[in-house]
């Protein structure tokens, strides 16, 4: 193994609370790429090194080779939950807590629990385990990352319903890419390795096309690269702090990690559904830039009398969605939208303002009123971005 030419005297421990468990996500781009297999391989490896590992949840649809890997590991029985006259099986987080292993293996991170479960999402169950100091190995596909929802839709035509908020994915201590070429995956599918034959045919016709798979695979690679970089940058910051104390590190010489002035993004949200795309895009850009991000709505009056009741509910949904992605939200009051927005942007020290293409009344109206022009002229020191409507870019060549 290559050794780094520079060295710091000691390794610094976990980024956050050292008592919290470590989260490792095996990231794939489709069913059948081998996420569970790779996760269980690591679990077995840890077990052989004498670490206390249990299987907290593992999908029973697995292939024989995968099943064989799980056999030597202790499995915590699933919990049975009745719902509408049927019985559903879910992970038993409480039983895992009681058993308190060092490491728990939990398949399918984005899974939604059946109603009646203690928590509605499996990632919430996992958070409980992490809080209790249990390390967790889990699996997910890139299309389940919330902020990628529009990009996935744009490049594959598939709208994914079960998503995991980005801040949850970002908490992972390790994201490991599980890669397989689309050709190999399609072969597996045809041989019936991934799904039973009738389901395989359906999947082949829809989700599992080489071009769709290629686009998702590329996203998974870029997402993993982003996770790797984010962690390195956190580490460099920590090293910087330590350097100031004991002056031992020479990590500056490593080079490729650049430091730029922090950016702050401000999103102008409206009551219509296009704001969801604005919020996701803002989140994504903020993540790449390591920027703070806030979202505001500008109301004409404190009572929001300009909005019909239904729109007020729609706006509330948008703001809730933003908060779910860990974007701070504010409702500002002012009769002049541009002026109110830009004044707040100054207080917030925003470097960029993001607005949606379709505001109430349509883009034409907005341009007609000169809202974008007004924002640009009031905030010449900030960058104003009109966010794309990402549903419209797929079209055919006339050949």
């Amino acid at each position: 193994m290559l050794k780094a030419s520079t060295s710091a005297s000691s390794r610094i421990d976990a980024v956050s609370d050292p008592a919290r468990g470590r989260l490792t996500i095996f990231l794939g781009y489709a069913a059948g790429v081998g996420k569970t297999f790779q996760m269980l391989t690591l679990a077995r490896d840890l077990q052989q090194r004498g670490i206390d590992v249990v299987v907290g949840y593992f999908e029973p649809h697995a292939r024989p080779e995968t099943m064989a890997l799980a056999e030597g590991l202790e499995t915590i029985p699933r919990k049975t939950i009745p719902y509408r006259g049927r019985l559903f099986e879910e992970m038993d987080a409480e039983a895992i807590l009681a058993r308190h292993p060092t490491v728990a293996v939990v398949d399918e991170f984005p899974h939604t629990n059946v109603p009646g479960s203690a928590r509605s999402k499996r990632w919430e169950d996992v958070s409980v385990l992490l809080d209790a100091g249990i390390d967790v190995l889990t699996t997910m596909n890139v299309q389940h990352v919330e902020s990628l929802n529009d990009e996935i839709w744009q490049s594959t035509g598939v709208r994914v319903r079960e998503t995991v908020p980005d801040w949850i994915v970002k908490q992972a201590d390790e994201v490991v890419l599980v890669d397989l070429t689309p050709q190999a995956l399609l072969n597996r599918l045809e041989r019936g390795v991934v799904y039973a034959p009738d389901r395989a045919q359906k999947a082949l016709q829809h989700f599992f096309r080489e071009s769709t798979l290629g686009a998702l695979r590329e996203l998974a690679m870029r997402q993993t690269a982003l996770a790797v970089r984010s962690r390195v940058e956190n580490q460099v910051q920590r090293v910087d702090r330590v350097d100031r104390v004991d002056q031992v590190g020479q990590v500056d010489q490593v080079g490729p990690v650049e430091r730029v002035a922090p950016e702050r993004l401000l999103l102008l949200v409206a009551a219509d559904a296009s704001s969801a795309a604005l919020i996701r895009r803002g989140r994504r850009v903020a993540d790449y830039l390591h920027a703070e991000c806030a979202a505001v709505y500008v109301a004409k009056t404190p009572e929001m009398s300009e909005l019909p009741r239904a729109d007020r509910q729609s706006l509330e949904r948008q703001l809730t969605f933003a908060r779910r992605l860990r974007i701070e939200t504010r409702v500002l009051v002012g009769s002049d939208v541009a002026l109110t927005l830009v004044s707040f942007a100054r207080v917030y020290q925003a470097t960029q303002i993001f607005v949606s293409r379709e505001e109430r009344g349509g883009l034409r109206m907005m341009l007609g009123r000169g809202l974008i022009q007004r924002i640009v002229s009031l905030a010449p020191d900030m960058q104003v971005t009109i966010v794309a409507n990402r549903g419209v870019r797929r079209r055919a060549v006339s050949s």
Partner: protein
Amino acid sequence: MPDLRPDPEALLRQAEADGRGRLKVFLGYAPGVGKSFRLFDEGRRRHERGEDVVVGAVALELNADLQRVVQQLGAVPMLEAGGRRAVAVDAVLARHPAVCLVDDLARDNPAQATRPKRYQDVAALIDAGISVLTSINLEEIDEQQPFIEQLFGRRSAETVPQSFIDSADEIVVVDAPEDPSPLGEIAGSDAQAIALAALRERALLLAADAVQRQLDDYLRANRVDASWGTQERILVCMTPRANAAAMLASGRRNADRFHGELFAVYVNQPNLTAEDRSALARNVMLARAQHADVSILDGHDPIAAILEFARQRNVTQLYVGHNLRRTWQTRVTGSLLDRLIRRAEGLDVRVFPH
């Protein structure tokens, strides 16, 4: 929306028809991530499915698991001289399997060998219609050497040109946690951890670029025109009076942050003054200095020309200048910015006032 995507098998058939073997590369970011395991595991699976697989090259030291697989598959003994080992190309050609496994692609051959490098032997096998599965680490790619030197203070002695990796039909990333223990108890310095992460990021991005290129080729071959690539691509629209320096600097910074690409264009119009022309020439120089891919467009309708270019290059973000002084023209017809924003529906438009 009608489904325009083609038969996914088309490309495979096309590739199999030309009589050449297929090259599949397992790319790792550091020794020990499990490339050889993945390579031989795929060889074993193919063998079990009835494909004719032989081993052409193995590392000197194999663990027990890998030794078993190599025995099961059968190896063509390697040539050895002066402490170096080479694939016995003639023997493999005579045996002519469907698939040959060649671990450790970057090795040099013994001095007296026909070809100095192992990857050249692999090329000979591919030409003869034998498919090859092989493995390499990022640090063994020739073009990565300046980066490797920056990280580790030295270059790798044996390397493979990037173009050979790019010629692969398939590239698989073999990723692994940098620290194999989720407990984080394995010792190692921060500098080392950072260097490893930098290698890992580079390997992932290199593979992502390869996947994107293959996807583009696939879509072009199948006459599908769509923005499938997921890389961010920034297009800076230069006009004589725009603050091109700020736009380009920001474009470069963002392209780097997003691991994306930077383009810059201006539209050649007949009514430009001499002053405008020299301003544009200056901007083109600035763009080249920021390593932007610069193009000059022609067209009566500048907006249409810009948007057509953006569509062809799968641009995701458009940077445009905006004159803050409203003239009588803009009051009557709406500014260029308004019209551009209206028509650039599928793009993020970032406005730079001047």
